[in-house]
């Protein structure tokens, strides 16, 4: 817990994300400026409530009437984005408090991150006096597609099930961008910045209860309030998958984290123990954070560890088997009955076993035939990993039919498929068939779905 702060209850953030009106303080008509980009993104996102650009030197920005100050708006404002130079931020927050503004996303920098603790303290004091909640400062903003609210960059419009909470704006943007490009979309995105007020626990609580969110991906360099984190974690850990990447695992990484976000970090092993205790999942890389969140937003966790690999590519199948085994999963051989049934079902040049090599000429339908045969003869299989290792059209349709017929999680890898892959990859992901570009990433995602223990 940071000095001078006491552990408190998680905040009600409904009016932050479901704000009914937004003012952009520091909006600009100059396309070079962040104040332009933020306003432009908010407009292009399709935000349906009133938007008030605030700029004392403009009458109109991007086709909207501009106001010299918040007080000149004369209408209720739920949320403000603050992009003015940091030294003006405490004054803006003070004014906002008097006007009944509920929350502020302070994108401006120049606070604690450069050693200017007094400025940040002045802003926090103004926020406390006026009852304004603050995200940031020194942050990349928030995005909540359910309310078409983008006070951030880049513009990400696609709504999906992933909530991204990051102590790094770039990591948040990178994850959001990926989710957008892959057709998955986001439930929300928050860049925490210096977290002078609203912190990771408040946000985990919000997205834990948010009906749009299926999985929560978190990047942190330190915890702001350990007690609150555990309290929130105990609730949300039971409701939804929460994946956490902790920056600063090594001694030198920890030092870098301290100077980046002024995080106080204890021992890494104790952080890991805290995650384990509340049922959050620890991951080791940005890829893993994204991949596991994606897998768990599509598939429910399942006890067990037996994986059946189906592939059109011998090599990719072998790589997948190696990683699955190294991760402690069980790529078990087929039973006699299973082998016999597949021999009857499949063309004679298929290599029957685990991995099951359907070979390079396989149409997508062969995956479906094979899985349906296995579902009858091998009830012990806990998860199917399908590798489409060639340009195989209709992979999506077949996966959907498999999902409808078979009560087991499905993870796919699409690799070496050229233009067909580009189309299928995005289609599969958008339909919640978690699909990955390499066998190792698919295997790691499979590991996050299977808990290992058979209850």
């Amino acid at each position, binding site marked *: *817990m940071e000095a001078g702060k006491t552990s408190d209850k998680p905040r009600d953030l409904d009016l932050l994300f479901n704000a009914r009106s937004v003012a952009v303080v520091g909006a600009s008509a100059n396309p070079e400026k962040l104040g332009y980009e933020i306003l432009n993104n908010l407009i292009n996102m399709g935000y349906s409530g009133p938007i008030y650009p605030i700029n004392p030197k403009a009458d109109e920005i991007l086709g909207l009437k501009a106001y010299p100050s918040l007080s000149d708006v004369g209408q209720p404002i739920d949320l403000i984005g603050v992009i003015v130079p940091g030294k003006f931020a405490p004054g803006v927050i003070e004014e906002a408090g008097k006007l009944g503004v509920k929350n502020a996303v302070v994108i401006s920098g120049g606070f604690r991150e450069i050693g200017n603790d007094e400025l940040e303290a002045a802003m926090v004091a103004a926020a406390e006096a006026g009852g304004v909640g603050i995200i940031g400062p020194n942050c990349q903003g928030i995005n909540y597609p359910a309310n078409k609210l983008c006070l951030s960059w880049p513009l990400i419009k696609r709504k999906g099930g992933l909530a991204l909470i990051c102590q790094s704006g770039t990591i948040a943007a990178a994850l959001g961008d990926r989710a957008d490009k892959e057709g998955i979309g986001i439930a929300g995105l928050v860049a925490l910045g210096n977290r002078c007020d609203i912190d990771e626990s408040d946000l985990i609580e919000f997205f834990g209860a948010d009906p749009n969110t299926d999985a929560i991906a978190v990047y942190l360099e*330190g*915890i702001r*309030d*350990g*007690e609150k*984190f*555990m309290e929130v974690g105990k609730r949300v850990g039971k409701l939804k998958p929460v994946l956490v990447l902790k920056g600063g695992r090594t001694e030198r990484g920890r030092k870098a984290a301290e100077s980046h976000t002024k995080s*106080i*970090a*204890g*021992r890494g*092993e*104790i*952080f*890991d*123990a*805290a995650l384990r*205790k509340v049922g959050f999942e620890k991951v080791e890389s940005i890829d893993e954070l994204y991949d596991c969140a994606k897998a768990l937003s599509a598939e429910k966790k399942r006890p067990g560890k037996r994986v059946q690999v189906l592939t059109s590519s011998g090599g990719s199948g072998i790589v997948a088997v190696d990683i699955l085994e190294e991760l402690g999963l069980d790529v078990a051989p087929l039973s006699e009955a299973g082998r016999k049934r597949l021999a009857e079902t499949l063309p004679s040049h298929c290599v029957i076993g685990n991995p099951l090599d359907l070979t390079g000429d396989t149409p997508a339908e062969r995956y479906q035939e094979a899985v349906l045969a296995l579902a009858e003869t091998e009830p012990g299989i806990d998860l199917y990993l399908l590798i489409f290792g060639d340009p195989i059209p209709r992979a999506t349709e077949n996966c959907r039919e498999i999902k409808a017929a078979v009560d087991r999680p499905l993870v796919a890898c699409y690799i070496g498929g050229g233009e067909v892959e580009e189309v299928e990859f995005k289609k599969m992901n958008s339909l919640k068939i978690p699909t990955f570009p390499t066998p190792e990433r698919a295997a790691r995602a499979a590991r996050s779905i299977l808990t290992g223990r058979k209850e």
Partner: protein
Amino acid sequence: MNPQELLARAKEEGRSLLEPEAYAVLAAYGIPVLDYRLATSPEEASRMAEEIGFPAAMKVVSPDVIHKSDSGGVKLGIGSPAAAAEAFAEINDAVAESVEDARIEGVLIVPMAAGGIEVIAGMVRDPQFGPAVMFGLGGIFVEILKDVAFEIAPVSREEAGRLIKSIKGYPLLAGARGSKPCDLESLGSVITGLSRLALELDEVKEIDLNPVLASPDGARVLDARILL
């Protein structure tokens, strides 16, 4: 004296707990410690060693001695009452010589422990998450392989069991290669006891139980440091 009183006294005297005080505090939280006596004269040493049983081990008790063995403050394998009286005198002389003005409270007498597997257990306070209990294999395993794991307090019996199973060396405790499995319930009570102690006694900053001897007949703390 109860644990609170022992802590209050040590705090007043500006020191951490002496070994027999640490044992008393641990025992109050159900953590299995060896039978022990504190002798303050050669005569007491003879009598107490006989009560404890032979062979016995003897260790100096002093707030000024940090490295007991290096200061000549430890004697092992005491086989008779006469040897205990002799060891008492030798320990006093050796410590007085190697540590200037050392205050000697007496000599601790415990039975020599044999057999079993050395593990370590401890408690640290994290600036974010509060007290956490640590468990691992002792000796070279902790030094070279760093085979330790943590659990945030409060630690339930079930979590203590999971913590024990989570270390790489767990098969050794579970009875690898046909040996008898260690008493894991008893080891678990060391962990849950540390958790309760940490939550109730805020003044305790850090605990280091190294080693704890795990055996089929139960776990026993062989050395304890409780820092305030």
